């Protein structure tokens, strides 16, 4: 197993531990979705890492892309009330996934259009969330809001991920930079989760 995998797994594990520690504090809120999601992420990463040599693991990541998209959509719907927009986004995502499967298949290559669609959706919904939050009185204690930290983590992750994905997609060889960047972005993403769960416990 390579060092970056250890880092990803460690970050996911720490996020899972924080999610478990503060579970009782947030289980009634929309944050509940992140505990099963983080456990799934961690298990998915372990399975993918250990079976990478012998099996076609891309399907695990493809499945992860679909699950994570649904989780984020559910969560943003609870946060900013997407109303009919959630159905439009969901239908578009289904089309994108269908397109990827039709053109490349689901077993071997990653659903790249779906990842980029997910990234763009999360970026847009994060901006909407922040704009709505800025208009509320809650902004006075924004740093005490778990939602703020989790959305910040997601926003930063996808903000860095989109250009990286585009550069790699254009065929540029930036393997080292790519790995370092993804590690850095994972720190931001799981850092957001960890702080989010921590502040939910202090609320």
């Amino acid at each position, binding site marked *: 197993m390579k060092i970056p995998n250890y880092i990803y797994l460690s970050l996911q594990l720490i996020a899972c531990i924080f999610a478990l520690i503060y579970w009782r504090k947030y289980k009634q809120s929309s944050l509940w979705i992140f505990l099963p999601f983080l456990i799934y992420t961690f298990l998915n990463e372990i399975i993918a890492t250990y079976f990478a040599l012998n099996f076609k693991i891309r399907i695990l990541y493809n499945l992860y892309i679909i699950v994570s998209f649904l989780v984020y959509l559910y969560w943003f719907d609870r946060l900013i009330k997407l109303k009919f927009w959630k159905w439009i986004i969901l239908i578009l995502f289904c089309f994108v996934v269908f397109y990827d499967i039709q053109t490349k298949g689901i077993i071997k290559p990653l659903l790249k259009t779906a990842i980029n669609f997910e990234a763009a959706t999360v970026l847009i919904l994060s901006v909407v969330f*922040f704009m709505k939050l*800025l208009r509320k*009185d809650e902004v*006075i204690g*924004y740093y005490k809001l778990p939602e703020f930290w989790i959305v910040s983590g997601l926003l930063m992750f996808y903000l*860095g991920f989109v*250009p990286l994905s585009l550069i790699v997609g254009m065929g540029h060889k930036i393997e080292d930079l790519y790995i370092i960047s993804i590690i*850095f972005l994972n720190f*931001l993403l799981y850092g957001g989760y960890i702080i989010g769960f921590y502040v939910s416990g202090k609320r």
Partner: protein
Amino acid sequence: MFLVPFAMVLLFIVFHNRKNKLIQEKIIEKKKFAAELAESEIEIREATLRNISWELHDNIGQLLTLAKIHLQNSDNDPDKIKESVEILGNALRELKALSKSINPESLKNMNILEAINNEIDRFDRMNFIHSHFEISGNPFQIPQKDEIIFFRIIQEFFSNTIRHSRATDLKIRCIYENKILKILVSDNGIGFEITDESKGIGLKNMKTRAELIGAELDINSIIKKGTTLTIQKKYHET
């Protein structure tokens, strides 16, 4: 990739600035509210003193004058003396009622309903106007600051009714429903033109005060029909 740290810093700057701006706005709002609240309390006290003055002069003073005239003309007539004693007894009762109604302790502990009732009792004593007070729903407690502002607005309406409207009837309805307090006050006076600028300042003052506590205020007036004041505020579950 350089975009990410930049975006992070930008995000925190935006939120921090907004937070500071909102805190500043809250402080200004709080100061404005405190000033308005203090002014309302002063106005309530002034109105109370004015009412005492009227009551002493027009009610108790009149009774005492009547008793004095009766005694001066009695020529030791037991009937006239008895009548004078009755008048003096009435004056004493009115004095006691007045004393009770203006006791600072009882005024402080009074809720909005008791305060309105107190005003109505005074109107009855003074024969100013025929008034009718009705409460519907289950009364719930509201913050004292809100009570002061509500009462001051209603008191201002009462004062205008007595002084300018030539009304004979005054109706007050307090409706407590679904955590909403709605107060309707109406008279059958001469009414006024809502667009009249001379009345505008008083109305604006009432509206500003209502807004300060997050209440909605509406005044309707029809010439020769009367004026209606509606104030309402929704209270959230505690």
